[in-house]
């Protein structure tokens, strides 16, 4: 059944690749504009073995994973801790909405000015891209805890800290994991934009540079590595979810 599902999942991709290869082979213009799966594959293998894409992948993965981890941990801690004070939660709500509505592209140049052109500004961009979603999602999780269960703990004389550790924190995990999954694409976007604006290495930089040189196979090869990075993060989150038995327990 699993093999059948995998074949079915890969089927549309296979059709797409065949059609793409066929279309590009029709004339040179098509090949120049759209490259072809075989050329993309060659470029990918060639640049991985030359070490160019390995280095770019490592830099971008480093920026994304560190920013993703810091942004989510800090965001979730802030969001969950808002449960302790309804007043602070209410006061901070419009600020979170305002900050969340700013396009990340608009902030990127300032981040470069404030934190320099090095890796730190890229990590900060990833943190900024993920932290607000982590705050709002984890606070929603904390807010949506069953009130009757909170009353049950109160009836036993539980302190706020006990209610938080025994009920709020574990029951918000489902929301926290949803925010992690949502944040994968935002983290990649944050790092990509930062590299796009100012960098001399990384997949975002590689895409910008190779598209300037009309090296479409390398552009697509770099995009494939970004997608691979997204799958990698998704897989890691899935593994932690499985380890914590989240889906089974919240069923």
């Amino acid at each position, binding site marked *: 059944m699993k093999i059948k599902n995998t074949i079915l999942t890969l089927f549309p991709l296979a059709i797409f690749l065949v059609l793409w290869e066929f279309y590009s082979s029709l004339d040179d213009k098509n090949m120049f504009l759209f490259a072809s799966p075989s050329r993309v594959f060659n470029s990918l293998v060639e640049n991985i073995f030359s070490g160019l894409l390995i280095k770019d992948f490592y830099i971008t993965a480093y920026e994304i994973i560190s920013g993703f981890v810091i942004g989510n941990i800090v965001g979730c801690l802030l969001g969950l801790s808002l449960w302790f004070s309804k007043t602070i939660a209410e006061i901070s709500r419009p600020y979170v909405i305002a900050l969340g509505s700013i396009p990340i592209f608009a902030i990127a140049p300032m981040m470069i000015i404030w934190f320099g052109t090095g890796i730190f500004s890229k990590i900060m961009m990833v943190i900024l891209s993920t932290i607000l979603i982590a705050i709002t999602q984890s606070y929603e999780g904390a807010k949506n805890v*069953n009130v*009757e*269960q909170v*009353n*049950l*703990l*109160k*009836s*036993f*004389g*539980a302190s706020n800290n*006990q209610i938080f550790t*025994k*009920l709020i924190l*574990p*029951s918000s995990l489902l929301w926290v994991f949803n925010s992690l999954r949502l944040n994968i694409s935002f983290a990649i976007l944050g790092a990509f934009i930062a590299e796009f604006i100012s960098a001399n290495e990384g997949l975002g930089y590689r895409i910008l540079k190779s598209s300037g040189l009309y090296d479409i196979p390398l552009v697509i090869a770099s995009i494939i590595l970004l997608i691979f990075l997204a799958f990698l993060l998704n897989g890691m989150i899935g593994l932690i979810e499985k380890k914590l*038995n989240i889906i089974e*327990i*919240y*069923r």
Partner: protein
Amino acid sequence: MIIKLSNITKTYNHSEIKTKVFSSLNLSIEENEIISFVGPNGCGKSTLLNIIANIDNNYDGSLEKSSEIKTSYMFQKDLLIPWRNALNNALLGVEIENNVSKLTKEMADKLFVKFMIDSKVQSFPSSLSGGEKKKVALIRTILPSSDLILLDEPFSAIDFQSKIMLYDYLYGYFKKKRKTVIIVTHDIEEAINLSNRVIVFNPRPEGICKIVNIDISDNDRNSVKFRNSPDFSNYFTQVWDCFNGINRIK
């Protein structure tokens, strides 16, 4: 006296419509006493329990409680925590009072055996039946060192055989541990079986109809024998008369 309710009036305000649940309700509850609230749906039994538990503070009148009184509350819903297994759910109250010890764990194991769910100790709530969940919630409520135990329809999903056995065990347990217990139930027989006093409620907003004292020695508390005695049917009639509108205290 452990609790004294004086002139308690409770009104619900829903979109400018005021619904009076009961008014000027007076009741004293003594230490180590087991009492039951019986009455029709919506007469305010659970509301009164919430007031006593300090969950509902929106009422008129006064509630006096002995200082430092510890309370355990079993709500109508089992409210088991899904990521804790049955044993860890049962130990929740004890954990909150920072009293988890080898002794409390042994006591929990003993209660799981007495409640006939010892094979479910490691099971998560999603795999327990409604009755099994209620039993775990009941263990969670009686395990802590609380002085006052509030039980809102504790036996509602439990099978008849288990109920009869649990009545006898729990009555002995509460008396031995010197607990004060308030039980909300719809079942008159259950109330008579388990209580020293049955507080009978009239439909909303009339409040208490009458108080029936169950004067039977602890030694004669065997549920099956007691149910066959003339005393039992006499108590039953006294409660039932109130439901029929006879002997109402106005």
